[in-house]
């Protein structure tokens, strides 16, 4: 067992973990933050996406011990003071989800992407979400949700 300290959504979490514990299991089973989903468990679907030190990664393909001393943002950390962030609002307004299983991953990928690209083209958005599978929507409304958020971010600053 090894002692780790991971900052998740701004809060430090100390824990004793086995080195083989995956980050997604740490998040879901140790911290009980179940917004981060497990879809394929084989590094393909992106349902488990979280932001690790500013970069969107598949948390089923990272060991929790690798996150020791680092910062993780999960879908639970997007809302601020009871207010959805622009991308969450975009998914709501543009009907960017049906079953919602892929949504947390889509939101975390978008969180990193929109920070680095304030005026994305449709092609750039589709490229950005190419590691996140959605079995329901056909992606059209997800692209619209990203465009909605990008627009809001340009008008109203960060979030």
């Amino acid at each position, binding site marked *: 067992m*090894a002692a780790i300290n991971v900052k998740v959504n701004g809060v430090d979490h100390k824990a004793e973990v*086995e*080195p*083989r514990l*995956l980050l997604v299991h740490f998040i879901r089973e140790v911290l009980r933050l179940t917004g981060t989903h497990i879809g394929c*468990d*084989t*590094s*393909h679907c*992106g349902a488990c*996406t979280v932001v690790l030190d500013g*970069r*969107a*990664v*598949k948390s*089923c*393909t*990272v*060991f929790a*011990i*690798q996150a020791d001393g680092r910062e993780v943002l999960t879908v639970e950390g997007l809302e601020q003071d009871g207010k959805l962030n622009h991308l969450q609002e975009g998914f709501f307004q543009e009907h960017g989800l049906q079953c919602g299983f892929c949504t947390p991953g889509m939101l975390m*990928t978008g969180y*990193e*992407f929109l920070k680095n690209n304030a005026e994305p083209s449709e092609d750039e958005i589709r*490229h*950005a979400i*190419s*590691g*996140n599978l959605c079995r329901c929507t056909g992606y059209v409304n997800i692209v619209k949700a990203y465009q909605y958020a990008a627009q809001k971010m340009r008008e109203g600053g960060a979030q």
Partner: protein
Amino acid sequence: MIPRSFEYSAPGTLDEAVALLQKLGSDAKILSGGQSLIPMMKLRLASPPHIVDINRIPGLDYITEKDGFLRIGALVRESDLERSELVRSRFPILVDTTSVIADPLVRNQATVCGNLAHGDPANDHPATMLALGAIVVAVGPRGERDVPVENFFPALFTTALEADEILREIKIPIPPPSTGGAYLKLERKVGDYATAGVAVQITLNNSGACTAAAGIGLTNVGFTPIKAVKAEAFVKGKQLDQAAVKQASEIAAGESHPVDDIRGPADYKRDLVRVLTARAIVRALERVKGGV
């Protein structure tokens, strides 16, 4: 899926990492991006008793130009390569390659050096590095050594690295003026390995003929990444008109050794090598002339 238990170390320096590897021998596996190793451990295709995580070693995430080489450190992620101004302006072939590897999330973790160290003939960087004449810098208990990438892949899933060596850096010779390169890959969907892939790098002399520096590499059409040496020899000194491009691509196809699998029958893949080689040469020629 849960990997077998293992001991974990995260050394803070290269020297410490090398000492650990020397002590542990074949019990240890290096963890860099983890995007091949961790999936294999979850499937229990790999169960190393000891993981040596090199991600905590500072100073290995550089992309620089020095002493005639572009140098890519062991902890450069695919997404770093994709975003690097130096790479975008001078090595569009590397941008071609990295942007068709896996997906943006995997590329945020996966390292360029790990892509070679994994020794998978389905990986995309090996063909490109063969075309570019890259050199792998390995560091181990006996010091540092350079391995030309053409000697780096002796057999399936095998590299020239010893168990106690770390791939510290990839060195790519800075190409002379009038050079262009391109990497083309056919994949069934994003994140899939290549049905086939072809990397081409060419330099033209003053009269517009191809110089001796030509490089052609093939992805996933053999047990190892393939350097298409006959096609390279053919283009040397030639004006690459339509007929020459056609002939070169047929020669390259003849150098591939694909097998039938879920991505298609061998004949189809061989023909794909022909088509992709011709297109990659044309794209490389456009880039010699300043195209994108």
